């Protein structure tokens, strides 16, 4: 609103008119003269104008002769309270927090405002219970290990994974490889190789990709 912020000093000013004028003044000041028209006639030095004509926030100079532009009217300013928040974007421009942390039953994920996402956790477990056909004494998991990411990617991420024995420690004897492609929601499929037919294995992974495309 852009009302005259000065009450007339000359009587008469009936009570009902005074209430209306005061309400208009309060709204005008409470919204920083929000409107498209230059409120210079009502303003004073260092008054603030929410210029909706071009969506800029402006401040009157000390001489009360011109407006200085402070910045975008509805710009988003980061502070300690909103750096960690749900990230979002519109046409690649951040509209939410800078960093978002996700923890659920499928692991940990970190998203940032630039569109990158990192997930870490482990696949489900499988047993190396199947004899490897061409190497005597070696066994693998016929059911591949796979897992669900804690947060969805916008395209299949790059994944680094390593096999791990999950039923105890012992000799380092498990290796593995990717045997099936992953998706935006699930890790690649992995099989491991072991000298034991009873090893329980899983693949611990780090996946790096994007949560929106540019």
């Amino acid at each position: 609103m852009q009302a005259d912020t000065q009450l007339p000093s000359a009587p008469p000013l009936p009570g009902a008119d005074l209430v209306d004028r005061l309400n208009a003044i309060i709204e005008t000041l409470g919204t920083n003269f929000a409107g498209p028209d230059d409120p210079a006639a009502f303003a004073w030095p260092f008054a603030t104008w929410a210029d909706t004509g071009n969506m800029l926030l402006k401040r009157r100079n000390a001489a009360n002769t011109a407006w200085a532009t402070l910045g975008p009217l509805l710009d988003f300013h980061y502070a300690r309270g909103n750096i960690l928040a749900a990230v979002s974007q519109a046409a690649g421009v951040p509209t939410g927090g800078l960093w978002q942390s996700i923890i659920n039953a499928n692991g940990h994920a970190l998203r940032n405002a630039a569109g990158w996402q990192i997930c870490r956790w482990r696949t489900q477990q499988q047993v190396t219970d199947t004899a490897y056909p061409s190497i005597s004494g070696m066994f693998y998991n016929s059911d591949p290990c796979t897992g669900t990411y804690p947060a969805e990617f916008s395209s299949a991420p790059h994944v680094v994974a390593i096999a791990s024995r999950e039923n105890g420690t012992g000799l380092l004897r498990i290796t593995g490889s990717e045997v099936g492609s992953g998706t935006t929601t699930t890790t690649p499929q992995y099989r491991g190789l072991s000298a034991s037919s009873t090893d329980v294995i899983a693949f611990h992974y780090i996946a790096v990709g994007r949560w929106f495309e540019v």
Partner: protein
Amino acid sequence: MKISFSPILSDRRLTVHKAGESLTINNVLLDFSAVPEGATLPSGAIECEFILGPVERIGGQIHLTLLLPHADGASESALFPDPIIDPADGPLELPQ
């Protein structure tokens, strides 16, 4: 029927309706009544991206896992969901 869940932060929407041993997932009907005892239906054989892993019949009961999309600020029950066992026919109440 035992339905387990695998949570994921995602904008996807999931609706599930149960009728006997059939599930309608996002308007796609999937009938598991023909899965015999001890058999495993691999996930690759099921044209539904919300079904993870195989569908099995164990002890007469169908076991399956569904991808469970959740939003930021989801409840603990959605982030770490418990399985639903023998749900009643009708719309499935999913952890939010």
